[in-house]
């Protein structure tokens, strides 16, 4: 790949002219179609999930907007979270991994049909799971464990089949070393498979408080051992590729990987600080939360040092700004999570809307921005079609400004909620006081949703060209 900055003059205007992508040479139509349909499904769930999220945000201002059981807040909230988790972000990450793992293994994916089966299973699980949640059938668990086991089982089967597909691809690689991206990506897959089983086996979680121990572990690993390693692994591929230079330090990536596995696994209990779960468990969680600073510094430092000297290229690209935001958000808001684990700060912020801000800063600011960076970086090279550079910029700024408004409002409001409780005010004051912040949140959420509509349109513009079809038919006929 040619460094785009060297191709175009660095003239500055309100809208920076973005570098165009040269058409990829090695186009594999069947695999491109697979990846594109994965991304299309993911984007469908993004629109569904965030439309529901925006609607839920409205309900804080107008609780009587509807009186329909299937749309009531308590039932819809897990529909929002599970759809964006398992439908959008998971499918989008798998789509990108379906490109990166074979590419870095210098061979084709082990089995395309198997990957289609996985896609069907995951889509079916999210669809059925969401409908059941709206009908009032849930697992009785807390965050991200709301689908009942038959549904989550179908999802897990989909992930297990992809994992198998990836393992066979890596085992049959045409290159001696396993690239660092694949460490992270395989970590994400294997840890998640283990996690799903641990979370849904009933043996050791049959009474209230034992279930809570597992829930703390699960809800944290669900984020940190699935989304985090997956998008980091993808970034270890896309960042050097888009910048056309090697990663700053391979060994820093390895260090961050092992500390991620050991430190992160230990910190789930920090979701139940001051709960009647074992006190030592909470203390261990807090200590390792601090240890995560090593992982964060190593990972972010590595990415930023790779970008150093190439910020011109970042400014001229429409994919790299997403990655830059994602990398910085990874550091800042994981660090925020460490702070939230401290007992002194936890008592102010726990149970408040601050937590909601934190989860959006990490899942959206970090994970989703890196996913978008990967999609804009990859798809034009696969299909030879680019989105409008202007609309990619509008997508970036709407999403960025939207999530900033959303989270700043909830961080301020959440802190004030905690202070109100500590001051001993009547509880209802912590509700009425939040009204303006909830309005800002609805506004920010609306902007975010708007940016997703633009993204969906951009993805449509990047669709594989039809002229590939006759070629493919011809190829099939030739084979027959």
């Amino acid at each position, binding site marked *: 790949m040619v460094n785009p900055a060297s191709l175009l003059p660095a003239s500055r205007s309100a809208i920076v002219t973005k570098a165009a992508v040269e058409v990829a040479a090695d186009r594999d139509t069947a695999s491109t179609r697979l990846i594109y349909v994965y991304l299309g499904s993911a984007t469908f769930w993004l629109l569904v999930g965030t439309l529901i999220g925006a609607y839920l945000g409205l*309900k804080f201002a107008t609780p009587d907007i509807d009186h329909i059981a299937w749309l009531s807040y308590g039932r819809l909230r897990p529909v929002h979270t599970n759809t964006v988790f398992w439908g959008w972000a998971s499918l989008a990450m798998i789509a990108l991994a379906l490109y990166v793992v074979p590419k870095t293994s210098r061979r084709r994916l082990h089995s395309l049909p198997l990957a289609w089966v996985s896609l069907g299973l995951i889509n079916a699980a999210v669809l059925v799971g969401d409908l059941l949640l709206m009908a009032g059938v849930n*697992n009785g668990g807390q965050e991200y464990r709301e689908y009942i086991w038959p549904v989550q089982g179908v999802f897990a089967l989909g992930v297990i089949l992809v994992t198998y597909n990836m393992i066979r691809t890596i085992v049959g690689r045409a290159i001696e070393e396993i690239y660092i991206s694949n460490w992270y990506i395989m970590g994400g897959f294997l840890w998640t498979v283990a996690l799903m089983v641990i979370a849904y086996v009933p043996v050791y979680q049959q009474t209230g408080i034992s279930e809570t121990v597992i829930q703390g572990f699960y809800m944290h690993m669900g984020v940190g051992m699935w989304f985090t390693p997956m998008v980091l692994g993808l970034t270890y591929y896309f960042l050097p590729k888009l910048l056309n230079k090697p990663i700053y330090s391979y060994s820093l990536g390895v260090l961050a990987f092992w500390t991620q596995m050991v430190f992160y696994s230990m910190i789930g209990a920090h979701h139940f600080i001051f709960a009647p779960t074992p006190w030592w468990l909470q203390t261990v969680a807090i200590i390792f939360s601090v240890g995560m600073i090593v992982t964060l510094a190593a990972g972010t430092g590595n990415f930023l040092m790779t970008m150093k000297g190439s910020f011109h290229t970042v400014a001229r690209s429409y994919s790299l700004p997403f990655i830059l935001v994602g990398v910085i958000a990874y550091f800042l808001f994981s660090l925020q999570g460490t702070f939230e684990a401290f007992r002194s700060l936890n008592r102010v912020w726990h149970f408040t809307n601050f937590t909601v801000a934190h989860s959006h800063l990490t899942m959206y600011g970090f994970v989703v921005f890196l996913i978008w960076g990967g999609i804009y970086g990859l798809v034009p090279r696969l299909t030879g079609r680019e989105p409008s550079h202007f609309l990619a910029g509008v997508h970036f700024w709407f999403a960025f400004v939207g999530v900033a408004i959303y989270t700043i409002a909830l961080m301020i409001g959440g802190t004030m909620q905690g202070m109100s409780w500590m001051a001993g005010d009547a509880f209802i004051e912590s509700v009425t006081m939040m009204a303006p912040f909830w309005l800002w949140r609805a506004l920010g959420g609306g902007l975010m949703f708007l940016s997703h509509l633009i993204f969906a349109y951009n993805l449509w513009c990047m669709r594989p060209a039809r002229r590939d079809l006759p070629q493919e038919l011809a190829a099939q006929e030739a084979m027959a």
Partner: protein
Amino acid sequence: MNFHRNHWLLLGTIFFGFIGLAFIIAILPAQWMQRNTEPLPEAKPLSDIEQRGLEVYIAEGCVACHTQQVRPLPMDSPWGRPTAAADYALLGPMDVWRPYSPAVLGSARTGPDLSNIGARQSSETWQYLHLYNPRAVVKESIMPAYPWLFEPATGAEGDAPVVTIPEAYAPEGGKVVPTEQGQALVAYLLALRQIPIEGASGTTQTASTETSRDSDASAGGDEEKADAKGASLYANTCASCHQANGEGLPGTFPPLVGNAVVLADDPGEHIDTILNGAQGRTIDGTEYASPMPGFADQLDDDQVAAIVNHERTSWGNDAPTVTAEDVAGRREAGAE
């Protein structure tokens, strides 16, 4: 040992290493908690209808906004004593689709904690009104309404309670009857009562430490502070029925504005009502059927006095105030 080249070594370490860590940090601690947590001796398992209510509670996702987890922090003391592992010990697997105990501890407190809601708000009528439309009793509430837990009253309900909904929120006909699910949910909510633990820093004790600190400060004549405390206690304890403006709900919860007991020079009956509750009284020509709970166990003398004084000096009421000693006197007189 070369993780870069040996894929089975790398993948095996990743997978089994994580499972090993999961045993240390999650599975074994959970197993240990499960084996070593006994319910409190006085604890009763949920009855059939209460268990069905818990299922409605889970199905409707009440957990999204309500905790059942009182932390050992002064800021949590309005919700009850700190919860212990034993409090959840009787929660068990729900059914074959949910073979785990339901998660009720919660992660957000957008609405109040419910660990002790059955004691804090024991009026069945209030619970039904509130579920039908929370704004019928708490104007500022943002909780969803649950009209699907009710049916229009037809006059042939049998034992089911008929609830009169305030006009602004009422359906046609004005009266509704809770469905079986609605009745089960309220039965479950009313069953959420904390069992006192000897020696645990309970509500009353924690609260009274804070109160005595407060009253030391107000001993210097800081009446404003004492009144702010009364206003806050009133908002948390009384306003959901008697309303923030003291006017109650016509026909359901009596007004305190111009109420003869509140305005009486002798505060005895006023204090007694708060301590012991009331039922079936006729006030200003209206008979009020729904019972008022007594607060003797939940509020100490200072707190009752603060509430009494707030009620006697707000919304145009102007009656003589009382001291904590007056309340202590009525408490003793009642106990004899």
